[in-house]
């Protein structure tokens, strides 16, 4: 799994923000669309696509999509 695919999966968790705005360096919590529900979408995506459990606290500690990707890769082992 490369980061580009992960960015696309990440973008699919959002309804209103255009996919072209997403990149690995995006500070996703600064998106206007960001809410706690977006966080749940990311948790569900990581569980479904990678079988990895990440927590809301871990998402809150992450700044960029790259941070979440690194976390998922680390947990996946």
């Amino acid at each position, binding site marked *: 799994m490369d980061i580009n695919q992960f960015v696309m999966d990440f973008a699919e968790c959002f309804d209103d923000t255009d996919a072209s705005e997403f990149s690995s360096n995006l500070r996703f919590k600064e998106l206007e669309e960001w809410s*706690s*529900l977006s966080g*749940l979408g990311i948790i*569900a995506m990581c*569980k479904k696509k990678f079988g990895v459990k990440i*927590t809301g606290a871990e998402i809150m500690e992450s700044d960029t999509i790259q941070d979440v990707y690194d976390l998922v890769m680390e947990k996946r082992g």
Partner: protein
Amino acid sequence: MASFIKAISYILPDTIVTNQDLVGEFPEWSVDKIAKKVGVVSRHVVAEGQCASDLAEQAARKLFFENDIDKNCIDFVLLCTQSPDYFLPTTACLLQDRLGLGTHCGALDFNLGCSGFVYGMALAKGLIESDAARNVLLVTAETYSKHMHNRDKGNRTIFGDAAAATLVSTSGFAEIGSFDLGTDGSGCNNLIVKSGAMRHQNRFDDIAFDKSGNPVSSDHLYMNGSEIFNFTLETVPDLVENVLRKNRLGKESIDLYVFHQANKYMLDCLFDLMEIEEEKAFVYMSEVGNTVSSTIPIALCEAKKEQRLSGNVLIAGFGVGYSWGGCVLTCK
């Protein structure tokens, strides 16, 4: 002896809180958008002074009236609530008297949330099949609005008050199959009202507001949404698998899934994760919200009205505790 659901009725308190009302109170928040995602348009809340017993009594009377049930047949009352009238006696004892049920009735409360209806059915089935009772009145009555802080826009969007009354008997329209039940008390702090009972009798008065402006308080309902969400994604697929195995059924034999109606977003994630087709997934919450232990009986009641209760119906409840349970109903 087999056990069946004979009838279900439910009631909602009169006061309605619409999304428009919430936008009025929280103009800084895109409540309309979020409410659209969680699938709730309006919810009902009790008036001040209206308690779980009042809702329970109304629901039971409606059950008797709508289904032409002679109340004298009731020989056991099971009442599920986490907002009882008193520490003691139990609300079930109050209900026995207020409904004018015979003193031969057994009656007890049990304290569960979103898994409560399934547990109640398991208890009722146990009572019937051990010959301790023949007609069990199972009432779920919850008033979470009393536990919530009035600035808690997140929980106020999701939760609604309600009561449902179910008659479990030796005959009926849905035979109650085998159960799978589970508990993980290590999740207790993720959905909790900390003060008011014996551990912390006095208020903490420790209210703080998180980044999104939601109050976090030990004196009110606290829910860690993402932890609960993770618990659900971890637990429910296994629960469903276990229920299927215990009932010796394959996934293809299930005609309808009626899960605890936590919120539409979570249900959609679960259905997606478990690859459950949309037409087999029943959702009923837009006008009632998450009514805790009453979501499953309310959904069953509505599915019955829509003539969608036939064949094998898998019900599953999960939440506060953590506690979870499921079973299969074989409907005529």
